């Protein structure tokens, strides 16, 4: 290997490092940057101050999945957060100060999660954190945020132990906005029990899939539905045929698919291919969604499938603007971070300061209504109780059948 070649290589490397250091983080280019024609629909009115000279920004950090195979979520999170940042700043910011969002990648890995949260706390010096999207990561960072004395608002992780360990008698700094899966399973099981007598659960081979399957198994059995078998798939699995043949042989009345739309789409398409179409389909994840329809392209596939979720498309302004800005329909991985930022913004406004402890105080006392989600207020385990939605695929469209409040 000649010396000149070596020098060339080293030069390229240094160049590449500099390029990434200086270039902005890769963000998808909005297809049509449409500025909101009217004031963006906000859950509550934030006190607007006349824009003054550059003021000390208010920093909120997001620890999310920005790399690796699950980075679709991170992409949607970033898109949503960028929109929220713009919306809030367009209305004058928080307490008259501009909002700045900081991102740190946890790659859904506990060790990287710990350092990502540390970075947000120590280096970026944020006032509050939204994170961490993966339950395993959140559980790891809970002691960290506790000893640092900073709020962390979970928007995606569904593990029961997060809220079990939060609030009264536990970690008072951890809060959760996304609705508890256990509650949704309880309600949905009753819906399912009214329609079928036997079911097969097809769920993902990770913590989300396992805990959802567990919850549904208990509830469905209690409601008199026989679970014929539980099948597991890996994210991105291509071939469902052996599984489908097995399901066909078991001949259940219904199928519960705990999945996000990419995997649901493949399962659904292959079931149609194999002619296994006489089951009632239930989803838990992002099955009954526009994204699913966009992938599957055939409105007859899984027509009539029902799903329970924390949000459903309601033709709101947010949905239109997101579609216009990013060229894809908004979905739950984007909706919850978007509103989480507003929740924190409201808490900061109520507290009158971005002091970390004051934000925590304000969150515990928060009573807010977000039209798309429901009432936001945290119980004594720091868990919010927004509304539940039952949706159905009707001829290629997502239709909301029921909206159920869960706060009592």
């Amino acid at each position: 290997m000649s010396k000149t070649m070596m020098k060339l290589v080293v030069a390229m490397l240094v160049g590449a490092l500099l390029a990434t250091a200086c270039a902005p983080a890769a963000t998808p280019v909005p297809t049509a940057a449409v500025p909101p024609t009217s004031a963006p629909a906000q859950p509550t009115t934030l006190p607007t101050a006349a824009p003054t000279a550059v003021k000390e920004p208010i920093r909120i950090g997001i620890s999310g999945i920005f790399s690796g195979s699950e980075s679709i979520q991170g992409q949607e999170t970033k898109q949503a957060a960028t929109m929220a940042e713009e919306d809030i700043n367009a209305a004058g910011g928080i307490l008259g100060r501009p909002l700045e969002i900081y991102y740190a990648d946890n790659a859904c890995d506990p060790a990287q999660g710990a350092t990502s949260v540390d970075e947000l706390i120590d280096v970026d010096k944020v006032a509050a954190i939204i994170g961490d999207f993966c339950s395993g990561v959140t559980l790891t960072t809970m002691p960290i945020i506790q000893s640092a004395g900073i709020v962390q608002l979970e928007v995606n992780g569904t593990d029961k132990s997060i809220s079990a360990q939060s609030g009264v008698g536990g970690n008072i700094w951890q809060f959760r906005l996304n609705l508890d899966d256990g509650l949704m399973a309880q309600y949905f099981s009753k819906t399912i029990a009214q329609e079928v007598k036997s079911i097969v659960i097809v769920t993902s081979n990770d913590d989300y899939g396992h805990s959802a399957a567990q919850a549904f198994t208990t509830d469905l059995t209690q409601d008199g539905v026989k679970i014929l078998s539980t099948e597991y798939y890996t994210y991105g699995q291509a071939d469902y045929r052996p599984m489908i043949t097995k399901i066909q042989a078991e001949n259940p009345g219904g199928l519960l698919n705990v999945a996000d739309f990419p995997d649901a789409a493949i399962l659904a398409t292959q079931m149609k291919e194999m002619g296994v179409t006489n089951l009632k389909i239930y989803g838990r994840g992002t099955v009954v969604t526009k994204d699913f329809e966009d992938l599957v392209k055939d409105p007859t596939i899984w027509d009539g499938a029902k799903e329970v979720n924390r949000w459903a498309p309601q033709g709101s302004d947010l949905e239109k603007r997101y579609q216009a800005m990013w060229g894809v329909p908004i979905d739950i991985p984007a909706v919850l971070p978007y509103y989480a930022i507003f929740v924190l913004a409201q808490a900061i406004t109520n507290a009158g300061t971005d002091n970390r402890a004051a934000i925590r105080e304000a969150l515990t006392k928060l009573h807010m209504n977000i039209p798309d989600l429901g009432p936001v207020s945290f119980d004594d385990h720091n868990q919010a109780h927004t509304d539940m939605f039952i949706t159905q695929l009707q001829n290629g469209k997502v239709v909301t059948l029921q909206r159920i409040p869960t706060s009592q």
Partner: protein
Amino acid sequence: MTPTAFLVFLLEEAINGLMAGSMYALIVAGLALTVGVLRVVNFAHGDLFMVGGFVFYFIFGLLGIPYLPAALLTILAMVGIGAIFERIVIRPVVGKTWEVQLVATLAASTAINNGAIWLLGSMPKMTPTLLSSTGVKVFGFGLSWQRILIIVVTGLTFLCLHLFLTRTRTGKAMRAVSQNREAAEGVGIDIKGIALITFMISSGLIGLAAALVTPVFSVFPSMGTMLTLKAFAVLTVGGFGRVNGAIVAAIALGIVEALAIGLIGSSFTDGFAFIAMIVALLFFPYGIFGKRVGI
């Protein structure tokens, strides 16, 4: 389940396995060629398949070119991409120790995999074709025309490959190089040229596989890794670098996986390949076809 129903069930799973196995075989055959002729373990093989899938998606899904020309274009594109890859990654490591080859191609795999995520996003893409959306039902067992196409084309391809390797000069040269590199060089065979051609054929096979298989599944950036691992498991069992061995082992793997899912359950799906491989290695340390060298 009644005994007849159970037998039918087994038969259906076996056929599922055959279909999956033929797809594996098409993907693995190229790797067997690379390993056999170039003596290079290419850990980026699965990622090249992923690239082929995306190329097909761009040509067929985005540009809207009809299926047959799109498939041919995909194959051509992959041959080109394969030539470039051979030059940048493979050629420098031919002749180095195989650990160096492993790490070099692993590095390439990481770069390609994450490059795809970075540039294309993690969102999977689907490309249903007319053939994949319509099908036949045989005694209540449904399969699309695309699957039948896959089996037919795969069979024809292997026939052609066999004829190529045994009847043409280039094919014989490839086999000669795989059996004894120095001797082949000694009789005047252009090793570098053969290496390039082999890799291009291997990439062409990948392109063909991508065009055939993507319509029934989907394509997304991280799909390559597990494919590569299973491909190596198959190669290990079939006898490293033996094309026929690889094909047989691939089909066997497909059938084993399908039966295991049907009878046992799906949580260990990816593990079956490796458990089967470990078991096979315990009895046949050099692969089920023994130590004979050459493709």
